[in-house]
């Protein structure tokens, strides 16, 4: 039975600037999460704190009620694939595999070797000689083959072309089914991962503003359109994120449950909108 990963009241300040303001959430075992946020929202800082690379100003990261800080057994359950490269530049890809195997045990070499072919790499290549896309791919391979319960991926598709992104998603789902564990995808390409993530965490202005199951969240993402007065009447009191006008037709984007009592006029159409747009409306600085 895997333990939860608990992020408890994490605050991170650099001098007078607050980057993370009392962040708390729980990661369940064997679930795919999406961590979304604009540039500078603090996603990378949060992931770095979760993997003990930097220290929070206050707060804790725990697995099974024990602090992960300086705890080898717990750190062996977490793996972060980050944008920056932490391996010595002249290291070969094969050596990154061997390090992960020696530190985490049971590195899936079969999977790793197969993925090398999928991404067109060979393990004798040196990290310093790889292009951006190749570097991302080599780090991805380690992240998918490493034996950790919580695998955090910071911008996993940076520099990958469409074909490789497709391969990555397939391989992610495949290894997730074969060996269920938790993945956290932190990315900007929300459209492509919407159907992959079971649970969404959205960061904005140094807080977590959304922490919900994707399905439940998107079920509340209604796009109501019709004549302006009718739409306003129908959406009165509900949480409207943004409105648009085209001619006489107004479209209101909601994040709320619909009131069953309210009558829907014939001219008012009810549809849905996707996660990417929800994210944009939520993080646009509150203007709508």
């Amino acid at each position, binding site marked *: 039975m895997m333990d939860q990963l608990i992020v408890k009241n994490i605050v991170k300040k650099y001098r007078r600037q607050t980057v993370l303001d009392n962040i708390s959430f729980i990661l369940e075992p064997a679930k795919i999460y999406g961590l979304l946020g604009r540039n500078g929202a603090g996603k990378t800082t949060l992931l770095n704190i979760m993997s003990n690379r930097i220290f929070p100003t206050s707060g804790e990261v725990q697995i099974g009620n024990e602090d992960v800080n300086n705890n*080898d057994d717990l*750190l062996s359950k977490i793996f972060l694939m980050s944008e920056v490269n932490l391996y010595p530049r002249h290291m070969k890809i094969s050596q990154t595999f061997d*390090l992960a195997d*020696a530190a985490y045990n049971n590195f899936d070499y079969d999977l790793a070797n197969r993925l090398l072919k999928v991404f067109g790499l060979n393990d004798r290549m040196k990290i310093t000689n790889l292009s951006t896309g190749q570097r991302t791919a080599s780090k991805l391979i380690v992240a998918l083959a490493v034996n950790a319960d919580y695998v955090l991926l910071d911008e996993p598709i940076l520099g990958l072309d469409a074909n490789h992104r497709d391969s990555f998603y397939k391989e992610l789902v495949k290894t997730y089914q074969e060996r269920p564990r938790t993945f956290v995808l932190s990315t900007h390409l929300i459209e492509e991962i919407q159907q992959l993530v079971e649970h969404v965490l959205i960061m904005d202005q140094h807080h977590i503003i959304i922490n919900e199951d994707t399905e439940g969240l998107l079920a509340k993402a209604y796009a109501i359109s019709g004549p302006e007065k009718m739409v306003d009447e129908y959406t009165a009191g509900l949480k409207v994120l943004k409105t648009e006008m085209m001619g006489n037709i107004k479209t209101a984007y909601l994040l709320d449950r619909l009131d069953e009592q309210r009558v829907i006029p014939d001219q008012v159409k009810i549809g849905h909108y996707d996660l990417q747009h929800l994210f944009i409306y939520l993080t646009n600085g509150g203007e709508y």
Partner: protein
Amino acid sequence: MKNQKRNLVISTMFQQAGDATGIALGWGLGIVLIIYLLELIISHNLESFLVSLQALPGIASSILNILLMALFLATPYTDFKWAIQNGISRKTLWQGRILSLFLMTLVVWFIAQLVDLMNTPFDLASAWHSLLWYFGLSLTMMAIGNGFALLNRRWKWIVGIGLPMACLVLLMMLAYSLVGLIPALSASGVFKSIIISNVTGWVILVIYLIIVYALARFFNNKLQLRRD
């Protein structure tokens, strides 16, 4: 799990040290040898050449000494990075590094002793003393290296120049104040016996070792991914 990771640190450090040693010795001895050979070719003095060759072990030993210092001065941050990437805690990283330092210092000291034996007979006291000095030197390098690993580029400059300056000024002030004290204290026989005693030297060295070990460890545990 912890031991496994610690051993991984040690083996990786030895691997890196081995590579660096190979390159340094190869180049260092190689160049020196070429110079001697050139001398031989020019002067046709075979005896002189053979005498020169005797200097090679000493040169090799010196190279190893420098490498040891350079290794612990330059690698703290790079080692921290791949270690934390693989979920190795700072505690275990420290254990691996201090053990590597201990073993490597022993090796370098041992080689230096062997080289010395070519010229001077074995003396237990001086051998011991030199071992402590070696540890002192490598621990100092580790402490400095670890300390610098905490700083970003700007602060490296500030501390790199500022701290030695500050130390120099402090030492000079100390020296001046001691000079002032000496006439008054030289009368005190106790003070005389403390300074002259051999034991004081040892005690100071051991205290220094403890301080510098603690500093190195303290800095190690404060290591974080830098933003620069």
